[in-house]
């Protein structure tokens, strides 16, 4: 007797089934390296192809890759260390707004 649940009892949508590997450990573990390699690779294109831009400083090799990385980290840290630390409050701070919609 198979322990595999029948399709009828399976709560996973049939369309989602082929994509369950998105949750696998190997995928999540390797994703950061793949993305890092892609970002560096795209930045490296600028060393072999001079990219023209409206502003001179934006023509620096890898400028946009560094800007994207830096801006993202700045946004997250700013949100975390400034907004949440100083402006974060309990969910029921505003009367009657704590519950789900």
């Amino acid at each position, binding site marked *: 007797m198979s322990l595999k649940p029948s399709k009828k009892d399976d*709560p*996973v*949508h049939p*369309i*989602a089934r082929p*994509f*369950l590997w*998105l*949750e696998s450990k190997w995928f999540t573990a390797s*994703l*950061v390296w793949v*993305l*890092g390699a*892609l*970002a560096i690779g*795209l*930045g490296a*294109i*600028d060393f072999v*192809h001079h*990219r*023209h*831009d*409206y*502003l001179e*400083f*934006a023509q620096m090799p*890898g*400028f*946009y*890759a*560094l*800007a*994207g*990385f*830096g*801006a*993202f*980290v*700045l*946004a*997250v840290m*700013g*949100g*975390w260390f*400034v*907004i*949440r630390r100083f*402006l*974060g*409050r*309990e*969910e029921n*701070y*505003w009367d*009657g*707004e*704590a519950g*789900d*919609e």
Partner: protein
Amino acid sequence: MGRPAMSELFTHISPAWPIIFGGLIAAIVPNNNVRKVLALLAPILAGWCWYSLELGTYGVVEFGGFTLETLRYDAISRIWSLIFIIAAFLNGLYGLHEKDRVTDAAGLIYAGGALGAVFAGDLITLFMFWELTAISSVFLIWSARNKAATKAGLRYLAIHVLSGVLLLVGAIIHAGETGSWAFDHIGLDSPGGFLIFIAFGIKCAFPFLHNWLQDAYPKATVVGTVILSAFTTKMAIYALLRGFSGEESLIYIGAIMTVFPVFFAVVENDLRKVLSYSVNNQLGFMVVGIGIGSNLALNGTAAHAFADIIFKGLLFMSMGAVLHRVGTTKASELGGLFKSMPLTAFFCIIGAMTISAFPLFSAFVTKSMILAAVAEDGHWVVWIMLLFASAGVLEHSGIKIPYFAFFGHDSGRRVREAPVNMLMAMGLAALMCVYLGINYGKLYDLLPFQDAIYAPYTFDHIVGQMQLLLGAIFAFALLMRIGAYPSEKRSVNLDFDWVYRRFGDSLARWVWLMLDRMSAAAGNAWDRAMRGIGGRLYQVFSPMGTLSRDIPSGMLAIWTSALLAIVLIIAYFSP
């Protein structure tokens, strides 16, 4: 070659009217099926009217000594009216499953009101439709029928009616100064212009005037939020473009609008509120474009508004579907929903990639026009702010929304996929996001200034944009890997609305209390004083008083004596 006969029936009829009348009929029709037919048919009729129009001014009405232009159809109103009609249709389709007469009626009247405002050729007509959108849209918030929505709706209504009042007063002053009620370039040279600027700024969600948006939108109904996201702010962008293009202060106002919501959205738990901050962020790009005022910048603003209505609507639709099925859009309660709502997840990812401006998606060909115009104008600090905001929007709308709702930590919730009509609306919106990103010439053909067309698909632009996006996505993966990404938790973050919701409310209560106490204290003091003076006078002048023992009683005698004494003193000291 003549126009099709059917088309002639609709020539010179404002596309606003079929939608407004559809809404008025929906308000009185109890049958849900009839209302749903109206929700789809009215935008289709409006589309037919739009298709039948030729550039020009129609619908001129003399009323109360004013000349009202209700249908100014030119290169600017053409693109705005088309996207409003498309949005009205998508919203009607998205809301087919919902049996709520108030939402059906309000949604149509609101969309028609926004269309009417876009076609307004004078400030009186603009004011009337401006107020119609305010009054009709609040019912989309109140339809949620809970305490928080009721209070938020009241705040929303107060702020938007204020915007209308400022517009009217500003228009009167402006007309007094210029002798014209025409809704053309207004500028900030006069007090009237300044008031109109603030009126537009309220609906545009300028910094410090923005919190009505994050307050009200997440509290509206599932369908209501989607409808709200399309019209008010984009109508205001249109009005700003008409009245204040090239106004330099807008460059800096817009730049701030792009940046500050990023920080709030990062740590916001309610994903519909995250999208509301995202609305602010995208509006900022458009406001900057209006401030730059070049033909390329204004084209970019128009194109980005067009694209934004679709992709932002799509993102709100996907979160609405989650709310409809799961009952919450709190990121801390979600995760792993792609297993049960894979199509919704797919459409959400399309919306997320579009707002992030990936190549082949619409925002790639629209937002870059604004950035190019800013760079061409030499505003490099503003350009850097917009670049930061571009990475920021990837963070909160490109990654956070789909990741925390559909992937991330599996919440274990297993629900049904969204209703078919919701999927159809999302599918159409997603299709348009991709279509406009690839066949962008169709969008560019609608732009107001055909002498300033942009070439988005250059090797340099694609590489630069992909660098930015991949650099940011890598940062996300790295921060998650090392545990430096803030966890989602049930909380709220104070914003500027604290000033009027908590501080202002407390101040008003305190002032009221103080006035009450002062009034009581003043009353008591007056009573005491009167009692004291009166008592003393009584003791002195009453029939039983001191003076009555020696002096004839009666006030007349007293005063006569006093006056006599004064006269004698003056006479004595006179030269």
